């Protein structure tokens, strides 16, 4: 239409593309490829220090050379544990709450607002707030438990190696639950009423209605949520860093690929970082895990689409 303009005017649209294209190429595309390149070198990041080509050695270190490999596999295991927890507590619980919202007559808007509210707070700030709440001596959570006579349950939530990770994830869920609830809710509301009412008339229980009708229809959205749980689980960093420090204690029980990555690239307490090449290798490995799953999820999502 307007390409008919004469002279340079024809290409003025490039000018409109540049403000988006240049930062994107510079700060997203280039760093991505550079990470891959960097992962084949051994370098400590100090300008002027020698960069040594080591091929796949950084990868080897993570995969089977202790102490790096112990850390790597432990962190990876934790990431999968987190994924499992998120599936249950985020998608699972979120769907349940959303369903309940469709079943009550009044107050849905109110609950919706409250449930979603923590999502607007910074995740890091949430971590700070809850680290105070969960303090075993002075925190409100244990104080409340003691007050209602459940003092036996007043544990060192963030200090016990077995409890720390689920606790941190619980805080993460507190922060983000509003999102799956809203998505599931929107999906459920798109289910045509007449089908549900017809099933009701036929004597189907609420549960059957959900399982046979609602669930298949909202399945693509749930798959989407689960895919987000996966990439979320593998991208977690701030909340652990803020609540447990870069060392992800106690005894590395909250260590994830994100915190391991940070420590490798920037050093934790004790000031010994193992190198930027090594960190880049870790980043690439994480890419290799997350990207295929995201792609795969969007593909199978289409397969489950139900025509209504």
């Amino acid at each position, binding site marked *: *239409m307007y390409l008919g303009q004469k002279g340079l005017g024809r290409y003025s649209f490039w000018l409109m593309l540049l403000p*988006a294209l240049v930062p994107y190429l510079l700060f997203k595309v280039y760093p991505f490829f550079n990470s891959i390149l960097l992962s084949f070198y051994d370098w400590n990041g100090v300008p002027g220090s020698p960069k040594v080509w080591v091929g796949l050695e950084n990868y080897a270190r993570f995969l089977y050379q202790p102490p790096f490999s112990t850390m790597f596999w432990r962190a990876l295991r934790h990431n999968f544990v987190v994924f499992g927890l998120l599936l249950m507590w985020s998608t699972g619980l979120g769907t349940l*709450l959303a369903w309940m919202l469709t079943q009550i007559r009044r107050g849905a808007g109110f609950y919706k607002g*409250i*449930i979603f509210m923590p999502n*607007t707070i910074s995740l890091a700030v949430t971590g700070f707030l809850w680290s105070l709440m969960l303090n075993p001596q002075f925190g*409100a959570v244990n104080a409340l438990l003691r007050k209602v006579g459940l003092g036996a349950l007043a544990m060192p939530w963030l200090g016990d190696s077995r409890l720390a990770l689920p606790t941190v994830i619980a805080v993460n869920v507190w922060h983000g639950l509003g999102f799956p609830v809203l998505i599931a809710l929107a999906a459920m509301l798109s289910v045509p009423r007449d089908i549900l009412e017809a099933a009701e008339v036929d004597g189907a229980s609420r549960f059957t209605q959900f399982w046979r009708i609602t669930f298949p229809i909202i399945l693509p959205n749930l798959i989407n949520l689960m895919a987000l749980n996966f990439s979320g689980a593998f991208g977690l960093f701030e909340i652990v860093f803020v609540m447990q420090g870069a060392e992800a204690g106690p005894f590395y029980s909250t260590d994830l690929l994100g915190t391991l990555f940070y420590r490798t690239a920037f050093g934790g307490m004790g000031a010994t970082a193992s190198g*930027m090449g090594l960190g880049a290798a870790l980043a690439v490995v994480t890419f290799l895990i997350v990207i295929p799953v995201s792609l795969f999820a969007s593909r199978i999502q289409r397969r489950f689409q139900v025509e209504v």
Partner: protein
Amino acid sequence: MVWRNPRLRWSAIGFHLVLGSYALVVLFPIITMLLGSVKTTRDLIVNPFGWPQQFVWSNYVRAWSEANFAVYFKNSLYVTIVSTLAILLASSMASFVLARIPFRLNAFIHGLFIAGLVVPSRLSIIPLFLLIRDMGLMNTHMALILIYVGTSMPFDIFLLTTFFRQVPNELVEAAAVEGAGIWTVYWRIMMPLVRPALATVAIFEALGAWNDFFFPLIFLRDKKLMTVPVGLSVFFGEYATDWPTLFAALAISIVPVIVMFALMSRQFIAGLTQGAVK
């Protein structure tokens, strides 16, 4: 959306119980924080979540001036506003071009942007760090702004192109007949029509910039330049045992956002949930 079956009354009570309990779980830390922020330290240790014995407002004053929170706040405001405006401009212009202007590299560039959706930005921090350092942008707000713009393009362009495509051709043709150039079509016709989508992008990105912790953590050194989330971590380091002041600082960080949310909840929810509508 509910059925009038009286038998469901009991279940409704059950549902309200569950939903209500969760609502309490959400509100518990917020209330504790607010109450704690106006107590004295001794009062807080003895009485973690009860009503304050006396109301002490000096904690807020301490957090705001002495502990630099005013500066953190100002910085967050600056970075958020500038980034959001820059993002809106860049992504809307690019989406417009990609959506409406046929040219040879269109599909390729569009695909390039979309591909970025599956790549987590923070993992590329090492080269980003080196790049920012070599550009001399360490410890500047510009570093943050540029990074926010660059990394938000995939999602925003993905969202906006759909909307730009929906604008009816007739409007554009009518304008072309009157001699309107690209810019006029973009600014006068397209933009007003995609306003809801722009609002969505604005809220999503503004909240993201305001709440971000990771990039300011890596790139900001000077306390005078820090944004609220990183400032809070410095604060927690400096005032570690002064719990009431910590709560006051948390309140300063959290309450404005909650208030905004309460006032504009529909827009917020729409903005933030666009993420999964892929």
